[in-house]
């Protein structure tokens, strides 16, 4: 989780990723941030994030992102 928060802070520093649960719905992460984030997450966790996974539910919080990463690693 720590590494994920580091990646997020590198992309968009203006958010508290420990507590925030509306990163997408609250327009904190833009579509450009998401493009960066996906490329970073794929490199870091050796996963492929298909377009279908790019939904607010998977990116609204760091915890939701971690859950998605773990699921994709299992696949």
């Amino acid at each position, binding site marked *: 989780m720590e590494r994920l928060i580091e990646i997020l802070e*590198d*992309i*968009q520093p203006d958010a508290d990723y420990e507590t925030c649960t509306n990163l997408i719905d609250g327009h904190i992460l833009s*579509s*450009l*941030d998401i*493009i*960066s984030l*996906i*490329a*970073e997450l*794929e*490199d870091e966790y050796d996963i492929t*994030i*298909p*377009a*279908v996974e*790019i939904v607010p539910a998977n990116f609204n919080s760091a915890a939701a992102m971690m859950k998605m990463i773990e699921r994709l690693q299992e696949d």
Partner: protein
Amino acid sequence: MDLSFLLAGCGKAMTSFFALTFLFLFLPACLIIYSIVPRSWKKYILLIASYLFFWFVSGTLVIYLILSTLSVFLLGLWIDRIQTQMKDHLKELPKEERKAAKPKYMRRQKRVVLLGVVLHIGLLLVIKYSGFFFLNVNGFLKLCGSSVWFSIPRFAMPIGLSFFSLQAVSYIVDVYHGLEKADRNFLRLALFMSFFPQIVEGPICRYSQTAGQLWQVGPIKYENLTFGLQRLLYGAMKKVVVADRLNPLVTQIFDTTNNYDGGVIALGAVCYTIQLYMDFSGAMDAVAGIGQIFGVTMPENFERPFFSHSISEFWKRWHISLGAWFRDYIFYPVTSAKSMKKLTSSARKKLGNHFGPLIAGSIALFCVWFCNGLWHGAAWSFIFFGMYHFVLILTENMIAPAVKSFNTKLHINSASKPYHAMQIVRTAVLVVIGELFFRAGGLQAGFSMFGKMFTSFSFSWLNGDTLSSLGVDWQDMLIVGITIIIVFVVSLMNEKGIKLRESLAKKNIVLRWSVFYILIFYIIIFGAYGFGYIPVDPMYAQF
């Protein structure tokens, strides 16, 4: 039974939800039959009503809808079959071999999806764009001095083709992604594809949004009936009182643009933008209202777009379902392509967090806006319209860090109300310019009209004679102005989270019915219909 008398009256007039034939014949008949049949029949009544509606409007072209639904149904089942085979096969394999076995099945599924996309988008391309394509090919050949030319093909276009084709593709892709289980009930899928309120102008629904609701419809509830009728009346007010009243002025200015100076053209562009908004959002109010009467929550297609602070925000609030379709089925798939992800990673290292992802983002954005422009029509002016918004949104993204540092240096509070007001006005001006090109009869006419706003601007239209030559008078403008204020106040309250219909429902019966009667009489008295007015078709139905 001979239905020719209905067909003669319905046909074209039925395309509008506010046409008398629809409001006082089709919809009440549908509601009465729907109410008296047993619950288990209600969904079939909706299906029959939807196909009758399509038949009244497009006649034998209903075959397109039937074939489209049939192909989507079969392709969905085909994908489902491959997915079941894959699951069964993978279950039998040891864990380490599963990953290697999967791609074969995924490739087979992709081929089916591709077939579905080619069928539906291909049909749309042939019917809607082949004329435009061959016209340009002929122009190019002529330019090269060739005497060869192609005859321009013309196809009869069924109503709503641009809408239900996108719905068809979204269903196939969602089944492929495992977001939806392929529907084994052909009639349920047919109702999802054809539901009569949405077939003319959308919204473009995803299967998960409406299919289940439509198949589980029950008796009409009093609250749904009143809320739905209120929404329908509100939409009627926007369309009949504002959009149709502005139509003579807009038509006159855009059809005889050479007769007018830049001031009149600016007035025309503003009035056209208002007309388009009131026409389209009014129709969407009707869709939502009719849906609500049957107990179906239709996705919202507008969220007060003229409160937007930027063009990107505007397009998240205007024609939301089209924007969402392009985002989900073009923008993210393009940016998620392997090559794009590589590009983003390397560009981010060289150009930083902001400009790095902008390269892949701008390629995807270009695809989205090229398709968006073309979706609206087969003409260079529509492609220009798309590219205009592509450039604006790209520019907004590119200059965002510079604007932020500029504001910080000059101590400008970007959260203040005046700053927000400036952003809203700037966005509205940019939207109006875009709509000028959208409505102008071609690119050349668009540039000529735009140029006039700078070279020969005056307020001559304030003179009553100019207005009357444009087919309207001061009374018309006053009625339009008052109605716009009403819509503005309602929008402002919605923006602040005030639910007007719910608040009204808590008031006493006299006040509730007074509002109903005021709205009805307002539309009857101030609506632009009858003698002296040409009925205006729903503007988005032509796209």
